[in-house]
Every structure is written in C-alpha cells, then in structure tokens.
C-alpha cells in the first residue's frame, strides 16, 4: 500500500436540518486496496459517511477526494459514471419489489453495457457466490430477511467495483453466513478492490482482523 490514497477525506462535516451534526470535522485517508471496518454505536454517523461517499447526499463542509477527483466538482453525468465504479450494499437493501432477484441483479449489469447473455452469466455468478442461485426467480417479498440482504450484496458485486461500500451487510445473517460473506469480500479485496464495511458485529471484526475505525457522535474516536 503506497502512493496517493484512493479516498482522501478532510474536514468533513454533515449537519441535517434538525438535530446534532451527524459528522464533525472528519479526516481520513484510505489507501488503494485497503479493507476497513467502520464501527460505532447506533447513530454515530457510519451510514452518513458512506452516503456521502456515494454522493447520495452532499457534505455541509469539507472535501472528499476519490481517485484524485474532488466529488463536489463532478457533473451530473460524471456522478453517474463515478457511481458505476462503486458497489454499495444499502443498510435497508433497496431491492426493486416489482423485479425478480435475477432482474434486480441483471439491471446493474445492463447499466454497465453488458449483453444479455453476459448479464445472465454474471448475475448467476454473483447470486451463486452468496448462495442464492436457487431463489433467482423469486420476488424480494418472497425472500427471508437474510436472503434479501444477500441479494443486495450480490447486486453490489455485479459490477466488479473498484470500491465496495457495505452498510451493515450482515445484520440479518447468522454468524457462519456472515463470516462466509466476509471471506467473499476478502477475496474481492485481494483482487484489488478497496472495501469499506460499516458494522456493529465485533465478533466479525475480530475474526477478520483489519484496520477498524470507531465512530462516535460524528468523530473518529479510535483506530485499531
């Protein structure tokens, strides 16, 4: 790990309309190919940080530089392109209810410009890696909580992203499955993808054993 960091955050703050600041003067550098855990109590600002990295929201203050680009300077079209390079697992899954599992995943592949057969192949591949190939034609409402979460993970992996952001990706999985998913992430990480995982699961962090940032009330209180 050397050279320019892939993510360079400085003085980042986020204030929502009401309530206390969600992030305060946060500064952080992530090297290319790193695997990082972000942890901290409920409401600490983990999701907010990841949301800002996806440009799902704008910072109130401070700068986020990814791959040398200041995110605040991107045009609309550039934002979409930037997002295509990111795999994101949403804390609340965000599957499209009207589409089957396969369609939910294929959609992302199609956006990347794959042909139909490529899409199918890729979708099957990622669904298999989370153990859901047999539920391919089910609709999200027909899946258990953990199954939905795994579809969300599969979808994030579809584009073979250079940056993987996962917000509490194992909250609905049993410990064995959670560890399996983490091993999957490690594999992907070994392929050069930078991975940032927000999680509460201390056991999981212990088992994987990576650099861990502890957030509390919007600031980093501990780095392990």
């Amino acid at each position, binding site marked *: 790990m050397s050279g320019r960091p892939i993510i360079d955050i400085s003085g980042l703050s986020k204030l929502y309309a009401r309530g206390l600041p969600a992030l305060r003067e946060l500064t952080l550098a992530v090297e290319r190919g790193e695997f990082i855990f972000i942890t901290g109590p409920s409401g600490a600002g983990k999701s907010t940080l990841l949301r800002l990295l*996806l440009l*799902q*929201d704008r910072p109130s203050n401070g700068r986020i530089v990814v791959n040398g680009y200041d995110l605040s300077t991107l045009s*609309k*079209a550039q934002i*979409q*392109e*930037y*997002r*295509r*390079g*990111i795999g*994101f697992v*949403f804390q609340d899954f*965000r599957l*499209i209810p*009207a589409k089957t599992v396969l369609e939910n995943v294929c*959609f*992302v592949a*199609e*956006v990347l*410009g794959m042909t139909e057969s490529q899409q199918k192949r890729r979708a099957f591949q990622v669904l298999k890696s989370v153990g859901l190939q047999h539920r391919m034609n089910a609709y999200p409402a027909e899946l258990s909580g953990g199954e939905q979460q795994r579809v969300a993970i599969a*979808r994030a992996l579809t584009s073979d992203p250079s940056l993987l952001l996962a917000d509490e990706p194992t909250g609905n999985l049993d410990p064995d499955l959670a560890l399996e998913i983490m091993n999957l992430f490690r594999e992907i990480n070994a392929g050069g993808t930078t991975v940032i995982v927000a999680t509460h699961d201390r056991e999981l962090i212990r088992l994987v054993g990576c650099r861990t940032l502890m957030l509390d009330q919007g600031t980093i209180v501990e780095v392990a």
Partner: protein
Amino acid sequence: MSGIRFALREGFASIWRRRTSSALAMTAIALAALVLSSLLLVTSNLERLLSGWSTAAEFSVYLVDTATSDQRGAVEAAVDGSGVAARREYVSKVDALARFKRDNAELEALAAALQSNPFPASVEVQVQSEKQGSAEVEVLVAVLAKLPGVADVRYDREWIRRVTGGLSMVRRLGLIIGLVMMAAAALTVAAVIRLAFDARREEIRLMYLVGAPYRFIRGPFIVEGLVLGGLGAGVAVLVLWLGFRAAFAWWTPTLSSLGALEVLRFLPVYTASLVVVGGAVVGAACGFAVSRRTS
C-alpha cells in the same frame, strides 16, 4: 442505441408488470381525450351546420316594371363584378306570382281575383358566406339601389346578424372551451401518470444510486408515459368514432329531416391524429418529469 432498446423493453415490461395500475391510468387518460375529441367533433360540425344555414343570407333587387333588359344586365354585371355574390338568380314577374301562389295557398281567392300581376321582377343575390355582414355587401347594396330601373333593394339583415353572430359565438366558445379542455386533458394525463408513478419513487432513487446513466433511468418512463398517453388517446378516438357511427346509423331519419345528414362529418384524420399524438407527447413529458432526480 442500447439505451433505446432498454427503454422500450423496460417501459413495456413495466406497463405489463403493473397492468392494473396501467389500465386505470390509461382509462382515465382515454376519458380526458374522449371529452376533448368529442368537443372538437361537436364544434366542428356545429360550425359547418351554421355556416350552411348562413349561406341562405341573400338580398333581392326589385326592378321597376318598366326596367329594360339593359338595365337588368347592368344590375347583374354590378352584382357579378362586386365579388361578394355566391349566386344570383333572375325572378321574373311571372315567377314571382307563381311563387306567391305556392307559398300562400290559403290566399287562392286573392290570387284568382288579381286582374294584373302586381309582383315586381327581381334579381336574387346570395352572398358568399365569408362576406356576410361585411362592408363590401353594404357598398354593393347602396350602388345597386341607385342604378336605373331598380325600385328597391332589400335584404334580411336580421337573419344575417343572427346567423353570423351565432357562428362567431360558436367559434369563439369552441376555441375557448377547446383550449380549456385541452389544458384540462393534458393536466389529467399528467396527474394520472404522476400518480401512477408515485409508488415508484424509491425505484427511481435506486436507479440513480447504482449509477445508471440518465437515458437508462428516464428512457423507460418516457416510453411508458408515451404508450399510456398515446394508447389512452387512441382508445378515446376509436370510441368516439364508434359512437359517431352508431349515432349516425340510429338517427338517420331524424338527421336527414334536419338536413344534417350530409353536413355531419367525423373529425378529419389530421385532427384525430393530433389528439393521439398530443396524448403521447403529454404522457412522454410526464414520464420525463417524474423520473428526474429525486434525492
């Protein structure tokens, strides 16, 4: 290219997936378009009917009994040269008497009692419908009244005033109501498509977040709006046409007795297509609008 294929496939798939909702939206749109197109149909036919009546607007130039055929020729030349006449007809004294007898059968006794023919000869002039009530006609009438051999010029100002007044009212009312209805139909289409898409805001949001290009996100919605709007309007025109044909078949005797049979006509192809295209365009615009960034 792939964007267009994607938009078409996804747009149609989405209509099919949510078929109840789509059918409801299409029905509401069809009704708005039906109202608009029936209005167009009624006003265009009413206008045609009224302007048919108004060609009855005519005046008569009564000649003195001593008028020579040169004088009559001069009157006719003046009428022809004015450019306001649609038709003119010479009614001789004999014709006039015959017509009086025909129109006033209850006066047989009177007619029989006549020793001489008291009716003057006349030239009847029918005014072109677009010239009715114009200053040109007034000028012509004034000129004719001064010609030698002319006893009097009379025309039924009242009738002209009524018909042209009615016609211009129908035109103006039709225009105003038509514009209001067009706006109303467009608004309904917009409201319905917006409501039909309301449940899908989350989906649109997600599409932005996974980095889909704008054409991927908006394309399917535009297609969906286009199809719903166009199909709705198309159904409306079809229903209207069927209704028109049915009414025609049903009321043929009544309509013919009203002299309306040859005048009534369905919307011209141009107008009908305009309604359909309008529905599609409004629908597409709504699809475009609802799919803008939502976060």
